[in-house]
């Protein structure tokens, strides 16, 4: 599930996250991520978002960074957030997700167009 944390490596195996996207009960999507996935990528339901990820819709996926989730109230259970950039059609996107081993849930924290985008 986890990589030994070096600063230039993701905290999670992307394949584990992608596998979790097969089961909607394992993944929660934050409201903002949900809203922007619809606005920028026409992914309008949780099923569509997860199916898109699971079916390799995130093209040219590149890892950006991993950072501690700043709003985590439990300091004994640090949670890391992995961020990625991807391409889909003419759009460059940004995805951030995290995993809480206590609740057993993956959380899609962000899903929107990339700040570093070259298109549009």
């Amino acid at each position, binding site marked *: 599930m986890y990589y030994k944390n070096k600063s230039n490596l993701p905290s999670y195996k992307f394949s584990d996250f992608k596998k979790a996207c097969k089961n*909607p009960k394992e993944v*929660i999507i*934050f*409201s903002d991520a949900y809203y922007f996935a619809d606005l920028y990528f026409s992914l309008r339901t949780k*099923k569509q978002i997860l199916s898109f990820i699971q079916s390799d819709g995130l093209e040219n996926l590149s890892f950006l960074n991993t950072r501690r989730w700043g*709003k985590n*109230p*439990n300091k004994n259970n640090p949670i890391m957030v992995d961020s990625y950039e991807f391409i889909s059609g003419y759009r460059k996107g940004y995805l951030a997700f995290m995993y809480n081993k206590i*609740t057993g*849930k993956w959380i899609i924290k962000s899903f929107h167009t990339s700040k570093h985008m070259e298109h549009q």
Partner: protein
Amino acid sequence: MGDKKICPACGSEEIYETKKTIKIKEPFAGEESIVITENICLVCESKGDFFDQNEEIIENTIKRLKQKSVENILKHFIENKRSLSSIERALEIPQRTLAKWKNKISKTSAAGIALLRFIRLFPWLLEVAENKYDPQKAENIMLDNVMQKLQKMTSAKIFFDTQEGEEINAESESFGLIREKREENKTLSLSSQEIA
């Protein structure tokens, strides 16, 4: 974690549930307002549909609006004297398909909905299909459409007899360029017919 409702992000039990109204829109169908649930964690401030309460209502609303969009698009064609049978023939789809979609006898596929939207937006695509997707003819059909639109938008009066190709009055260079391209396409199209 049992049946307790906890925040999936931080595990806290301090979750607040709120209702909010959102609008679901579909092209050619308008919009519909629905009420969804949003869970907010009072500890980590995470917001979302933590317990999958909204998926069904959102999906059903989208489905309903998509069907409405199909009906509106087909109604538009009928009202503009374009028969469904002629559209089916041009697009080489089985006869009665569109009537079945309109009357909800069969479900319109996602691909079908996308196709209907494109021909509703650009009805000249049907003419492209009628001309068997010949590239030069297709480009000419598109250019004719552009010229008609430009004519409406500008005060320039262009009289262009599409059958005889005679230009009576041209007032801009861009119209000249469009005309040249059309002629080039006509020649290319005739040459490819001769070879065939």
